[in-house]
């Protein structure tokens, strides 16, 4: 009799323990937070999906903007020959091929993404300002520039959230590459100014593609366990 009771209690306790363990595991996939919730946590999967979506979008816009500018203003000027190794973010040591990207640790890669994104805050702001004042400024380029600036901020926020989830507490100082191309954008000489724009858009296209690629790698690695 006594042993039966103890057995029953033990089984109940075990059951409670198991259920608690199982319940704790299921916390991972929480739904999207309603607005105003304090302790809400969006799942990492959703954060990455959103980030990848934004980075893909930003690169598409950058690529279109560059092609448009190139067709309109840069034909026959040989800008491409001069726009070599002129991006301000080249000082950031980013992986240059797939193997390097796969070897780098995901935390480092996330930090790198953050740095690149932060490096582009100021140039994008000035790009919008200067494109507006450009002679015969095409609306499409201006609109794209504005959209890229907006989405870049959102992507930065999302990335900071991801970093906060992936390795919270390891918050580095805000390192980024400074951009010093503003005077060139404001040059009176049309050729110089146009090259400055061309260079800026060229670098933007590249860096946005880098970010997009890194995030997709990270997503497949972290969320889908390298089995996309």
């Amino acid at each position, binding site marked *: 009799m006594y042993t039966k009771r103890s057995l029953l209690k033990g089984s109940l306790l075990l059951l409670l323990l198991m259920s608690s363990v199982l319940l704790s595991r299921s916390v991972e996939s929480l739904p999207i937070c309603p607005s105003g919730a304090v302790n809400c946590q969006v799942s990492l999967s959703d954060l990455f999906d959103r980030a990848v979506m934004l980075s*893909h979008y930003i*690169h*598409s816009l950058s*690529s279109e903007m560059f092609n448009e500018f190139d067709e309109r203003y840069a034909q026959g000027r040989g800008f*491409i*020959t001069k726009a*070599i*190794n002129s991006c301000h973010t*080249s000082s950031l040591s*980013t992986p*240059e*091929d*797939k*193997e390097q*990207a*796969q070897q780098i640790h995901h935390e480092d890669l996330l930090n790198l993404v953050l740095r690149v994104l932060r490096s582009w805050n100021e140039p994008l702001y000035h790009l919008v300002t200067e494109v507006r004042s450009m002679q015969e400024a095409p609306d499409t380029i201006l609109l794209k520039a504005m959209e890229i600036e907006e989405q870049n901020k959102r992507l930065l926020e999302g990335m900071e959230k991801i970093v906060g989830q992936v390795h919270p507490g390891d918050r580095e100082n805000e390192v980024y590459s400074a951009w010093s191309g503003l005077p060139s954008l404001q040059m009176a000489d049309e050729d110089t100014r146009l090259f400055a724009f061309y260079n800026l858009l060229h670098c933007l296209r*590249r860096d946005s*593609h*880098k970010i*997009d*690629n890194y995030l*997709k*790698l*990270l*997503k*497949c*690695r972290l969320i*889908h366990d*390298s*089995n*996309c």
Partner: protein
Amino acid sequence: MKENVTSATAFLLLLFLHTHLLNGQSAPGKPKIEKCRSPEKETFTCWWKPGSDGGIPTNYTLFYRKEGESLTHECPDYKTGGPNSCYFNKRHTSIWMVYIIWVNATNQMGRSMSEPRYVDVTYIVEPDPPLNLTLEVKQPEDEKPYLWLKWSPPALVDVRSGWLTLQYELRLKPEKAAEWETHFAGQQTQFKIFSLYLGQKYLVEIRCKPDHGSWSQWSPESSILIPSDIKTKDTTVWIFVAVLSSVVCLIIVWTMALKGYSMITCLLPPVPGPKIKGFDTHLLEKGKSEELLSALGCQGFPPTSDCEDLLVEFLEVDDSEDQQLMPNHEKDHPSQSMKPTHLDPDSDSGRGSCDSPSLLSEKCEEPRVPPPTFTIPEISEKADDPGTKINHNWDPQSINLEGKIPYFNAIASKSSTWPIPQQSSNHTLRSSYHNIADICKVALGTMNVPAVSLKKEENHVLNYSTTIDAVGEKTTDKQNELEHFHSKADQDKTWLLPNEKMPFMSPRPMDYVEIHKVNKDGALSLLPKQKESNANTEQASTPDISKEYAKVSRVMDNNILVLMQDPKAQATVTFEESAKETPQPLQHNQAEKNLSYCTSPPGDCRLQTGGLDYLDPTCFMHSFK
């Protein structure tokens, strides 16, 4: 001197040139790098197009320089990519870096260099077409069949790590169609096609595109034949449905054939003809005219009578002798040769002061109040023998409601009828008012015809009908009944308490008839109105009471009938109750005490005639209430 030197030099050069041209050798032409392509963003290949080779073997070398580096490298692999190509393997490929590539063409005569080409591997990605495209026709149960396509990404592309994200697009067409049907499949590696033509051979191709690159080439064609024997199930279902519907139709047709008529009558009921309640159509078949006519409400048997005018529109007051009424009554009763079992053995039955307005004045002086005799048959156009018309089956004992109800209704709904004057023959019985007594008689005659037309006074009529037998004491009953009945039955008509005088029938429709006399047979002799000046005026005991018909203006004191002033008849006759016992029981016999009856005037009643010939029903009715 100088001129000579110059010309000599030119001549030599031209000679040299000619020599060269004659030999066909020259420096190579400028090559051109045509295309650089990376299939997976890990390696890339560049192809160049040589210029003119100058007729002598030319050597092409490719050199490149990376962005941020100053070293110049030569192509690592000239073979893998085919002729005039340079293949850069993974080790030599860097992404997000601009390659500056050029080709040198060298031969014995010289060399030439192509334009440098700036290549960033990031933007030259063009994968191979997808592989392993499989087609299958799937046919799930209860669903439409579809074509299921499956494929796999190209071999070199690394999709699993996310280095490249591929999107697919497929196109298909029936073999002989002219245009392709294109579908975008996204990132999935399978697809379902639902809109298919059966029995056709379909051709399918597929291609892919990286997230920021160029579309691949279309894969080689795959073909599949869609079988045409799909959907046999549907055919079976349709056959079953057709058989079932045909069976149902046959059943319906058979049912219609068997019971067509009854069904038609059920669906389209025949329009009912006018029906007289209580009137048995079989009577027509049987030919019993008496019963028929009694059912119709006609007393006697003149074939020409239509017995329809039973309701009086107004009552006329006439001061003819009440004795005229009596013969009428007597006549009435024996005239019912059909039913010898007459209602009242008492000759006085049915008589009363309420018989007719024309009699009121006369009845006033007569203490005797013959109860009104409702000789409905009289009302009909039976001038000859009204009595015979009376075919009520007045069986006081038999109280059969059912049969009589319609009869009663018939009476009530009829227009005014007249008691037929016995002597005034050839009257068309289109009198405008009728005898309340007659009505009551009819009511009684039909015995417990509980005044269905009254609808609500059934009980009362019943009561009255039973009491109507007692002629002597219950004349007032009858009168009350009559009045009651009249008032309720037809409010459009004007009523007047029947006095003891029998109304006279006028020969014309809607005219008053003055009762001349009532013979012993109970027949009522009526005189036409125009004759009244001649006849029966002397019978009026009240000189001041003319034979003119008066109209009741109002009833007061429950017993007094106030008639309207007749323009002809100057005298007004007030019909009062002489407080005889006969009126009393009559009144008391009524179930409704609010009935203010002009009870049978024994004699000292005076008829007050108004000027009008018609009784205003409204004031009359109010008195009853």
